[in-house]
């Protein structure tokens, strides 16, 4: 218990110090919403803390590059603790409810959990300066979480099974997946497998040209169902399946750099959304370092780091710097992501519907109970 008390006292002291030194307040602050900007004062306050504890569910390589770049730039160690899926949120909730303040930043792909814990008051309410100029509205949960990268859903295929021209023609719309020739050759990520599959199936539900029946039609194609997308991408590369949905472009690009024999194309409409948000713990033990970490990736410098990990930054007007794109430009099949196909899910709809729709989607795909 002494440890907890000491941490609590240190946390309060650090918060007081932060307020006094680094954190810039604005008119939003009067509403309890803090505006966080990367200022010299914040940087020096964060450097005095020397460390930031980040819990994350994104790929390990991506976080490794982010951590390394952050350390090189600010000389602040990133203690990265990976918890996939909803585990990070659950663990943070359990800690906070028990009065243990351990995590500074949650880089979380669980919007439902984020909103839920915000109601309990465990997340800092904050915003970024010039927010509308910097980010698309779809890239953040207002005052709560800000996503530094886009997740753009694509249809991935194995060119040995479906030649590029045929794939481009076939998958102009999602209806191409209903081609009888693809029966038994489609891989689907199961609805409970993460934000990307749920967003994609939600898109079918919410768009009349497809409707919820489309999922049933896909089920009639006897797809292979995958608990996670990684296994599906492995199978796609090996030729065990001919096409996989939903994949997303940045992760597909990493595969190509690694030597995967896969390609992808863009249908008429596809989810493009912010999948992973930076949220700051209200009781962060390293409050300045937490603020700096969460805000820096929305500067041009931080956005460039995201591109090192082949992620497409949400920060507007950034030059294309991804090495995978440079490689892909040399191919005859790849073309840049067509912005007009973006379907941005309504986060409120997402949060309200996931509890009921995910079991329903699973039943549609053949699970019982």
């Amino acid at each position, binding site marked *: *218990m002494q*440890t*907890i008390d000491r941490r609590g006292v240190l946390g309060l002291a650090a918060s007081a110090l932060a307020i006094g030194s680094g954190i810039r307040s604005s008119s939003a602050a009067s509403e309890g919403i803090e505006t966080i900007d990367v200022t010299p004062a914040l940087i020096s306050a964060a450097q005095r803390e020397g460390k930031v*504890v980040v819990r994350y569910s994104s*790929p390990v*390589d991506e976080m490794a590059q982010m951590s390394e770049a952050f350390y090189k730039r600010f000389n602040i160690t990133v*203690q*990265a*603790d*990976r918890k*996939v*899926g*909803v*585990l990070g949120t*659950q*663990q943070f*909730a*359990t*800690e906070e*409810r*028990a*009065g*243990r303040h*351990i995590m500074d930043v949650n880089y979380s792909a*669980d919007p*439902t*959990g984020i909103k839920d814990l915000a109601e*309990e008051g465990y997340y800092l309410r904050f915003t970024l300066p010039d927010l509308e100029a910097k980010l698309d509205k779809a890239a953040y949960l207002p005052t709560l979480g800000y996503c530094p990268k886009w997740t753009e859903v694509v249809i991935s295929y194995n060119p040995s099974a479906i030649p590029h021209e045929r794939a481009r023609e076939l998958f102009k719309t999602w209806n191409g997946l209903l081609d009888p020739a693809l029966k038994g*050759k489609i891989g689907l990520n199961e609805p*409970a497998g*993460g*934000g990307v599959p*749920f967003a994609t199936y939600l898109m079918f539900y919410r768009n009349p040209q497809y409707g919820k029946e489309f999922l049933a039609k896909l089920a009639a194609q006897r797809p*292979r*169902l995958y*608990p996670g*997308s*990684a*296994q599906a*991408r*492995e*199978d796609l*590369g*090996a*030729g*065990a399946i001919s096409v996989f949905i939903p994949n997303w472009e940045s*992760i597909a690009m990493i*595969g190509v750099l*690694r*030597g*995967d*024999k896969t390609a992808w194309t863009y249908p008429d409409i596809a989810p493009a959304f912010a999948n992973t948000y930076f949220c700051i713990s209200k009781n962060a033990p390293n409050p300045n370092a937490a603020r700096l970490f969460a805000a820096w990736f929305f500067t041009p410098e931080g956005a460039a780091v995201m591109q090192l990990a082949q992620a497409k930054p949400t920060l507007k007007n950034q030059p294309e710097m991804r090495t995978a794109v440079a490689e892909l430009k040399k191919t005859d099949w790849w073309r840049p992501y067509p912005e007009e196909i973006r379907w941005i899910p309504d986060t409120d709809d997402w949060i309200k519907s*996931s*509890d009921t729709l*995910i*079991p329903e989607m699973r039943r549609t*795909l053949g*699970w*019982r*109970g």
Partner: protein
Amino acid sequence: MMFTTKNVGAIHRSGEDHARAVCSSSSAPASIERRVPLTEASAIPERIEAIDRGRSVAGERIRAAVTWLFLAVVTVLVVTPMAAIVFGAFRTRSPGDPRATFSLQSIEAVYLGLFNGGWTQSATLHTVLLAIPVTISATALGLFLAWAVTRTNMPGKRWFEFGFLLSLLYSPLVGVIGWTVLADPAAGLLNGLWSALTGASDPLFNIYSYGGIAWVMIFFFAPYAFLLNVGGFRSLDVTLEEVAAVSGANLFKRMMLITLPVMMAGIAAAALFIFTLALEQFAIPGFLGTHVQFDTLAYAIFLRTNAYPSDLPGAAAAGTLLLILSSIGLFAYRRLTRHSERFVAVTARGYKPGVTELGAGRYVLFGVCLLIFIVGIAAPLIAVALRALLPVRTMTFDPGSLTLDNFRVLFSAADMLLGLRNTFYLAFGAATACSVIGLVVAFQITRRKSLAKSILDYMIALPIGVPGTVFGVGMLWAYVRTPLYLTLGILLLAFVIRYLVYSVRSIGGALMQIDKALEESAAVAGATPFKSFMFVNLPLLRPVLASAWLLVFLIVMREISSSIILYGAHTVTLPILTWNYLNDGSYGVASALAITQIGIVGVVFIVLTRFFGADLRARAAE
């Protein structure tokens, strides 16, 4: 009239008991003891009685106090996370959430769902349909292999002893990679070969099926039955079988009437062990069964703790259902082993371990074992090694594409050394703690029966009855306020609580095979109970202790389900790294890690056997 040394303890109590004991000894199967003339033995009961009287009342009290102390400590350790799980099952939200209220909704959804088409119905049915045949088949296979390497003169036994344990050295998730590479119906190498040889368009194997899942699980669990029985087989006195052979019993009859009944304690322990593992296994049915909507209870629970939408109360409630299922297994085990004296194989008289001469049949047996090894163990392992050497998985094998890049990535990873160090600390720590505590507990439970000891016996089996993820959540809820949280200490504690039952069962099984008369003989010679334990039981149990130690060591080396909830940035382990690589799609690096892990554990195994005398063949009484 003759009587046996085995019965001296009973005989001394009264003259009437004497006759009854003699009669009962003849009905005890496989208890063939040294016959002693009555006149020579008649003095023994008086001496034992005198020694018994001589044992101070204080000594008895100390033993009782130790038992109750153990019971209290184990109860606190076990009950804390288990109570958190049960408490969580009756909440609308996670414990600690201020919006949570008491409710039966999760319990109703789980238990009524079994009958009204709820989420637990098909999952529970699938779980049972998988666990029972897998338990029977894996136990039988492991038993057969243990018999082959210990009780026959088959050539190459030493190699097989190590070979049959290979699949214990890496994660089931990696095993799934191996089997997928081999037997994917559309892209498996074996199916490709079959198609090339026969021109057939239909695959020969389909790993994504009920049969495929069961197949992988059988070969994954059979080594446990092998490990848990190889010591018992080695300790078995060949005289028992020789007497039966002299009486005209053939090999099959000897197996059925002598060997298996005497081995029942070890067999039951192995079956119980495999049954509980099969119930809580989420990785194999999860990865292979999802393709065909074959979900099991453990996988459904895993989804509730890891995927969207999170439902921890539901997971906790379903954990209680699995606990009930595994309790049925525990009950069956207790029924099978309730008469521990029936399993006595190491008696006070001269002891003769040995092998059955099979003549030319030994080469046939060798061929069968080699086939099992190749098909069940070597093939997926080679596939994993192949995947580790390939940048991407392909349908065909191209030697030109082999590379060590995955190993380079692995060894340049910042967490690799940390994970290696943590895993070894935890595996050594948990194995040692479980062996030491398990020895004391097993001795208490096996040798001196009482209500408290029966409770203790049930208590230590509880944590293995719930899936590891649920147990991890229970530990998280229970220990988040303590300084142990996010340290190696909480992982170590979780492993000791969860796996103590395995060392108790394996050591207890061996103890049942050691005749109490040995201790009584020591007492006659003036030894205190402690001395008797140290100089009679402990030397006999040394190989079994090594076996129990290795068993827990191997389990912890690849434990993922509880760790995934409890680990932190500084307490990452090799199985967690494997999990992360798999989640990121780095199957090649995960395979490289598995191969590395096999290499490292293999070295530990060799060091233990060569330099520290650990001997899984358990020449107990030699």
